[in-house]
C-alpha cells in the first residue's frame, strides 16, 4: 500500500482503495519502485551448487511476487497479502521460476548457457515459466531423471518449480522455493520427487 505523509495523497489513496474494493488491481506497493534496480548482471566463469545454495538461502523469509524477481534480505515480506492474480503490484520477491532463474544465474538470452550473477535487488524474472523449466527449455537447462537429482537441481510441474536443498531420512526432500503469496520464500519438506506431475530439471555447467 502506498503510504505518504502528504494528506492529499493519503486521502486520494484511501479513496482509490475504497472505490476499488475487491478488485485485485487496487493493491500496489512501492517495493520495486523504491528498492529495486535494473543493473546489468555480473558474468562469472563458473557456478557451484554451494554458491547457489547461499544465494537461495539469502531469500528465505522474503516475499513472493508473481512474475517478480527482486527481494532484500530483512527476513520478512515487505509487501504481504498482495493479490495473487496481478503481476504488476510491484511487491517483494520472486515467483518460483524467477527465483530459480536468479539462483541458477541464468541469462535472459535463452540461447546463452553462461553464468550471470544477479543482485538480490535486481528486478528480473527471466524468460522461463515453471512449465518451460519443466520441459528443459533454454540452453542452460536440461531434463534429468528424478532419481538422479541432487542438491540445487529442481523439480518442476506445469505451474511450479522448487529446488532441492537437502534430503530427509524418510525419503522426502527439503525444497527451497518461492511457493506463493501466502507462503513467501522458504524451505519446506515436500514430496515433489515422487509426484508424477513433477519432472526433474538441472541447470547445466555446475563446477561442483
Amino acid at each position, binding site marked *: 500500500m502506498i503510504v505518504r505523509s502528504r494528506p492529499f495523497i493519503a486521502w486520494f489513496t484511501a479513496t482509490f482503495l475504497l472505490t476499488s474494493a475487491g478488485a485485485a488491481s487496487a493493491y500496489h506497493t512501492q517495493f520495486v519502485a523504491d528498492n529495486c534496480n535494473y543493473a546489468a548482471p555480473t558474468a562469472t566463469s563458473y557456478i557451484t551448487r554451494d554458491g547457489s545454495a547461499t544465494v537461495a538461502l539469502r531469500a528465505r523469509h522474503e516475499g513472493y511476487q508473481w512474475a517478480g524477481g527482486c527481494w532484500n534480505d530483512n527476513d520478512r515480506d515487505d509487501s504481504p497479502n498482495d493479490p495473487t492474480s496481478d503481476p504488476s503490484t510491484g511487491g517483494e520477491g520472486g515467483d518460483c521460476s524467477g527465483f530459480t532463474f536468479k539462483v541458477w544465474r541464468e541469462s535472459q538470452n535463452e540461447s546463452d548457457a553462461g553464468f550471470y550473477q544477479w543482485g538480490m535487488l535486481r528486478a528480473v524474472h527471466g524468460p522461463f515459466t515453471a512449465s518451460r523449466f519443466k520441459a528443459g527449455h533454454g540452453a542452460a537447462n536440461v531434463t534429468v531423471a528424478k532419481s538422479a537429482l541432487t542438491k540445487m537441481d529442481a523439480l518442476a510441474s506445469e505451474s511450479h518449480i522448487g529446488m532441492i536443498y537437502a534430503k530427509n531420512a524418510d525419503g522426502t526432500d527439503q525444497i527451497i522455493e518461492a511457493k506463493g503469496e501466502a507462503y513467501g520464500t522458504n524451505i519446506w519438506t515436500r514430496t515433489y520427487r515422487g*509426484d508424477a506431475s513433477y519432472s526433474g530439471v538441472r541447470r547445466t555447467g555446475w563446477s561442483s
Partner: protein
Amino acid sequence: MDDWNPYLVRRLPATFGVLAGVLTGAAAFVAAGSAVESGRADTTAVVVEATHVPALLTQAGERVELRYDAYCIELENEDAESSCDLSGTVYIRAGAAGRFRELPLRGDGGASQLVARVPDDIASSPRGFTYYAEIAASSGQAATTLPSGGAAAPHQSLPLGSPVTIDLGRHEFGTTVHADERVAEVAWGEGAEQAGLEHGRNLTPTGASAFDVDPSGSVVLLDQANRRIFRWRSGTRAPTRIPLSIAGQLADVSLAPDGSMHVLESVSEPGRTPLVRRFDPYGRTLQKIETAERTSSQIRQGPTGPVVLQQPSGQWMPVMSAGTPIAAEIQRRRGRAGRPIRGGGEIVVLRVDNEIRVAVVGSSGARRTWRIVSKTMLAEVQLADVLGDQVVLVARVYDDAADEFVALVLGDDGLVSRVALDAADWAETAPLGRFKLVGGSLYQLGSTPAGAFVDRFDLGVG
C-alpha cells in the same frame, strides 16, 4: 539475534557484543565476545545453516560416513561464492551413554560438504552409536549444532542386526486395488459442504491438506483454505463443519485421545517457527505452541501428547506433555530419531536410495528390523506404524511418468501382504498427511479435479 530468533541457526552480528554488553552487562558481553575480540568493526551478520541425513540404521560391516551440507553466509555480502570458512566436530560414542569422542569434520569436494568417517570400533558396536555435530564459522561469529539438542538429544544409530529382507522387485503400475469404502467426500469450492483450494498464481492445486480418523471411525478433514475442519461421524454421509482459527496454508492435523485437534502449520510469522494450534472438539482455541525448528513436516500423537517431526534436526520432538506445552528448548532436548509408539518404544525409518530400513525399537535397542528393496524407485515413506506384532508401511514408488503407493504389512517371516494404491494426489497436501492407520484399516486422503475424499482399505490383518 539469538533471543529473538528461535531458529537453530544462530546469528551473531559483530556489533551485538557491544550492544549486549551495554544493555545486559558483562555476562552478555562475554557471550558475544568472540566478535568483539576479533576487532571487527563492521556489522556483517553471519548465518550458519547445516543439514544432515542421520545414519539411523546401519548394516553389519557397512562403512559409515557422516556427511553434512553446511553453509556460512555473510548476509551483507552478495557474492555467491563468498562463503566464510567453516569447521566442525562430530561428538560420537558407542551406545547411548558415556563420554563422546571427538571426530574432526573434513572438507569433501564442495566448499559446503563436511564429512567424518565413523571409526570401525564405534560403527560395529552392538549397541549402535550416538552423535551430534557442532559446525562453526572460523571467525567464531556463528555456529550451529545438529541435532539442535546436542549432547542431550544426539542422533541415535542402531544396527539392523539380522533384518527380514523383502524384495519388492519391479513395481507394475496400474494394478491398484479399490477401496473398501469411501468414508468422506467433498467437492472443491467455498460452499457449506465443499473444501477450498488455495488461491495463487504458480500455486499447484492445494487443498484439504490433512485428515485423521479416531478409533470409532469418525473422520476429520482439514479444509485449510476455508479455515475449518469437516467431521464425519462413523456411518454418516453429511459432515459437520467446525470453523478453526488457522492461517489457511498447508497444515497437518492429528486427533488426540481426548478429542482435541492439533493443527501443525507450515508457514510461520517472520522470525518465528511453525505453530501447533490445539482446538477443542468444537473448534475453540485451547493453546498455541511454537515448534523448535524452522521446518516441521508431520504431527502425530505420542504416549503423552503430540510429537512433531522437525527439520533440520530430523527428529521427532514432543510439543506437549499431559496437556502442558513444551518450550522450544525442551523440545530440542527431547528429540528422538524414532516416532514414539503409544504402547511404548519407537518406530524408526530410513530410506536410502532404493532401500527402506525399518526398526521397532525398545529400551534395549532394535527389537525387529526389516530391509525393503525395490527395483522401482522409492520416494517418501508416508506411514510406518505398528499393528499388533506386524508393521504397516506405506511408501511411494515412482518413475519419471507415474507414481503409486504400496502398502506393505511386514511380519517376522517376511511380507504378509502387499497392495498398490492409486496416488490420488491431484491436490497438494501436507507432505506426510496422506495416510492413517486405525485398527486394521488403512485410510487414504485422495483428490481429483472434482474434489477430495478419504478412502478406507481393510488390510485383513492385525
